[in-house]
Structure formats: structure tokens, C-alpha cells
């Protein structure tokens, strides 16, 4: 994160555009980064103040786009693509494996994790795509999920002895 204040960082971004309104999305992105991955009420006041807008206008932008979160998220956000191509390759089984491993349902948030399903992440030929804090993991199968969750929890993973098929 930058050493500048949010206000100053937004001014820097604002200067890149011929019209300052264009900076509202990048400004909301910066504010979200600084507020633990979501946009509380204060974030809208801060962005509005930095760009001479109203908080309501900033909220109207944030509510349109899926990546702006209006509710808190866990430290790790796990997003499973369940569009067609991933679905054909077992995305539902991957999702269910995350649900059972984390003890959460899709859409749930705890301090530690947010688990959700998302529309096409643009990795269809490498299905199933799972985004972990926006970094895409490719070719995820249900059998990989325990290892991924252990890794995210910082637990050393030991491969279980699988009986011969």
C-alpha cells in the first residue's frame, strides 16, 4: 500500500484523467483495499470528499459493479466460477468440497473466509477456475480442495494415503 493518504492517492489517480469523474472507480478500488476489502459508509464519504462528489453517487457506482463489496469479507476471499465451461468440468463438486472443508455455504462470510460463486472468470479452458483473493488457480478439482484450504490456513499439508483404486 502507498505511504500517501487515501485523499492524496486519489488526487494522483484523478490527474490521469481529462475529467475527474473518471477517477471514481479507481478511487473506490483504493478505498476498498484500505478498508479490509469492502466499502463501509466512511469509504464513500472519503471518496466523495476527494472527488467533489456525493457519497450517494459513489454508492450508486459501487452497487453496480460486482467487485465492490458493500458488506465485510473474510481475510481470504474464495470465488468459484460456476459458469458453463467450469460447470462442465465439475465446478459444482469443487464448490461443494469448499463448502464442506470450510463449513460454509456459498455466499457465507466469516472473519477468516468468504466463499462465493461467481460468473465466468475468463479461464474456461483451464477449468475449474477458483480465484483466491483475486489470484486465479487453474484446473482445480474437488480432490484439490483440502490441500488448498490447508495451505490458506497455513497448515502444512500431508498427502493422505489413498487406497489403490
Amino acid at each position, binding site marked *: 500500500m502507498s505511504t500517501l493518504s487515501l485523499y492524496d492517492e486519489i488526487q494522483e489517480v484523478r490527474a490521469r484523467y481529462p*475529467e475527474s469523474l*473518471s477517477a471514481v472507480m*479507481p478511487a473506490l478500488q483504493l478505498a476498498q483495499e484500505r478498508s479490509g476489502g469492502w466499502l463501509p459508509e466512511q469509504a464513500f464519504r472519503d471518496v466523495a470528499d476527494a472527488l467533489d462528489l456525493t457519497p450517494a453517487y459513489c454508492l450508486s457506482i459501487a452497487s*453496480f459493479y*460486482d467487485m465492490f463489496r458493500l458488506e465485510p469479507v473474510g481475510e481470504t476471499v474464495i470465488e468459484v466460477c*460456476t459458469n458453463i*465451461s467450469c460447470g462442465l468440468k465439475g465446478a459444482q463438486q469443487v464448490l461443494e468440497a469448499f463448502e464442506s472443508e470450510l463449513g460454509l455455504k456459498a455466499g457465507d462470510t466469516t472473519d477468516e473466509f468468504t466463499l*462465493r460463486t461467481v460468473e465466468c472468470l475468463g479461464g*474456461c479452458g483451464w477449468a475449474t477456475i477458483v480465484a483466491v483473493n483475486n489470484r486465479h488457480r487453474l484446473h482445480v478439482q474437488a480432490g484439490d480442495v483440502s490441500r488448498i484450504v490447508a495451505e490458506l490456513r497455513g497448515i502444512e499439508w500431508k498427502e493422505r494415503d489413498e487406497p489403490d483404486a
Partner: protein
Amino acid sequence: MSPTPEIVFAGTNGDALTEIADYEAVGGFQALAKSRALTPDDVIAELNASNLRGRGGAFFPTGRKWSFVPKPDKIDKPHYLVINADESEPGTFKDREIMLRVPFRFLEGSLIAAHAIESKHIFIYIRGEYEAEFEVLVAALEQMRAKSLLGDVTIVVHRGAGAYICGEETALLESLEGRRGLPRTKPPFPAIAGLYASPTAVNNVESITAATTVMEIGGAEYAKLGVENSTGTRVFSLSGNVVNGGNYELPHGYPLRDLINELGGGIADGRSLKAVIPGGSSTVILTADEANRVTLDFDSLVDAGTAIGSAAVIVLDDRCCMVQLAVRVSQFYEHESCGKCTPCRVGTKWLTTILQKIEDGRGTQADMDLLVSVAERINGKCLCPLGDSDAIAVMSYFDKFRDEFQAHIDEGGCPFHGESSLDHLLAPVAMHIALPEGKAIDGLINV
């Protein structure tokens, strides 16, 4: 049929060219130098000679698009070049690989395009989910700035925030101006009144990257690749029930069955081919028989009643329930409808609802007619093609696999009995916080 040597991915040897010296070693930035020595009109003439057509989905001739931007003495406003890197059509993942592996060829093409339309301002609108790709572009730009390759042109990489609709060019411009991504009425077209009501060209990543090659080898040489009306190569995104999904750069005119069976390694798990969506989820589905006959170019696919679209080939094997496919496709468009036009906002929801009813075994014969009626009320009645895409795709499954829809009605449920590959696939759900009863969250806005 053997694939052509790579054009877009030339010089990569399967790797990524993210160091500027490596790109220069394979002839990088020569096309830019050559273009800057030419007049803008001469660059456009070269593009016209190549017959390069837009790779985003609409297949509009790139040179002609540039020629629509008025000369600076006609309209006293700055010109803008906007690159559409908001790749989000389900099935499509080519632009991200282009940005990851040949970022300099893409950025070089952007500078060539800016020269052709006499613009000093380039905006790259990249979808928010492409974080790694964003970082590669930013790093590549740093290297280009260090070598003063940008001249007096500024390039701003603008990140989207998750909205399929922003791939539609006027919605993209609205979003870039700092508004909700709602499509505009056309005319005026972006060439006259685009970004900030100024003359603007909006081009797809792959089109721009191919323009670099056009200027490198010459329009006439480029036009020798591919087939009539579909010159050059195309990066096809292959996904679904094939052994080897991935991007394949091929000359236009390549047989679809060879892409699936030879390059793609055939249908996975020993299953058989049922259908192919040839150009992204918006396009009309092909039955296995139709898919085995077509070649991957504009004319062949139009003759088959569909479209090359974004060149995203989704392969479906015999386990796929067509009603489930329709439900999931319609859920996507319903979720992504911006809500501006009523036929789309309401119609996509109705399509999903009726399809889900049929899938659940609650459908009646009247629902089959209602489905057609709703689709007809969406088609052609909105500002942008999002609603049409839902109606056209779903109706193509309905028309070509009507027996399967009918079986859901007759059997009072899904004839696949839970064995379909898309069974109970969960669409995106609303997020909520698992909090103890009565605990409030600081700063939460209830919307």
C-alpha cells in the same frame, strides 16, 4: 489440416515475452517505427488491405473503424483510443493470454492505432478480475517509458470492477467516464461522439495486437492467411468437455472438428459429442452433425446459422442436459443485465424462471409457448444485444433439442435424473455475513 505459424503469439515459443529486450530480439517495435514514418491514412490503407476484422465479436473491419474517426481539423476535440480488454463473454479467455504473453505486441499495436486515428490518449479498459494481466501491462509500460517509446502519447490502464455489460462499447465508455455501465443510444457512434463526447475508436485487444503484425508484414501479406472474408489468424478459446482445453491460434477456415479432435484431443472421458457453442455463450448452438461440417470462419458459421463471435468454442458431451444449459446461460444474462431496457431486465428473468420451472418438472405445454413468446419480446427491442444474446442462445437450444425440452414436460422432470454434467450448478448467490444474532456491523449500509 496443420495450423499456420503463429502471428499473434509469434516468437514466444510457448513462453511469454515480458522483457522488452526479448521482444526487440524477435523484431519488436519495428512495425511501430514503420507506421510512424507513414501518414495516418497510409496506415489505415494498410489495414484495409489486410481486411483485418474486429476480434471482439462483431467482426467489423478495423481499418474502416479507424477511418470513421474524423480528421482533427473537422472536430475541435481530442481524439481517444480505447482498448476493450474487458473480456467477459463466457467461454472466452484469449485476450488475457495475449496480454500475459505478448504484452509488448499488444501495446505496440495500441500506439500504431493511436497514430492512425491521430490520438495522443489511450485508455485500456481491463476487466477487474484480470489482476495478474493488469500487473503485466503496467510492468511492460514501465519498460516502454524507460525507452521513450510512447513519444507524446499517454496510456492509462483502467481497471473494471466486474460487469459483463462493460464489454459493450458504449457501456464501457460510460463506465470509463465514471458512471454505471449502461449502454448508450446510437447514433451518435463513438467515432464521432465517444469518450467525453469526443471522437473515439474502441478496439479489442486481439484486433490491436494483430494490427502490429499487419504493419510488420504488410496488409497484402496478412490477407494471404485465412480465407476470403476472414483473413489472418484467430486465437480460438477451446473449453468444455475436451481433453486439452486452451487457446489455439489458427488460420480462419480451420475445420471445427479438427480443433476438437486433433488439437483438443477429442471428447474427454470417452464420451461422445453432443453439441458445440462456436463463438461464446451468445451464439447459436451447433448440433454434433453441424459442428462436424463447419469451418471456423465468418462465412461458414453464418451459413450454418450461427456466428464466429468471440471465437470461444465450448464443447458439450452427451451428458449435458440442454434445459440445464439454458437455465445456467439465462441466469448469467439475467445477472448481467444492466436494467436500462425493460425487455432485457424483465425478459431475462422470465426466461430463467420458465426454464427452471421446466427443469424442475413443473413445466406445462403452455410454458413451452410462453418461452418462445418471451424470447420474441426481447429480441431486437433493446439498446444493446445483451438480452438478445440470452433469447437467441436459449431459443437455439430449444429449436435444436426440442425433444429434450418436451421430455422434461412429459416425464415431469429432468430425463437425465441427476446424471447431467450441469446438474444443480449453483449460479452466483447474494453474499451475507454469518454473524451471531443481533450483532451489528460498523459502517454497513443497507441497500
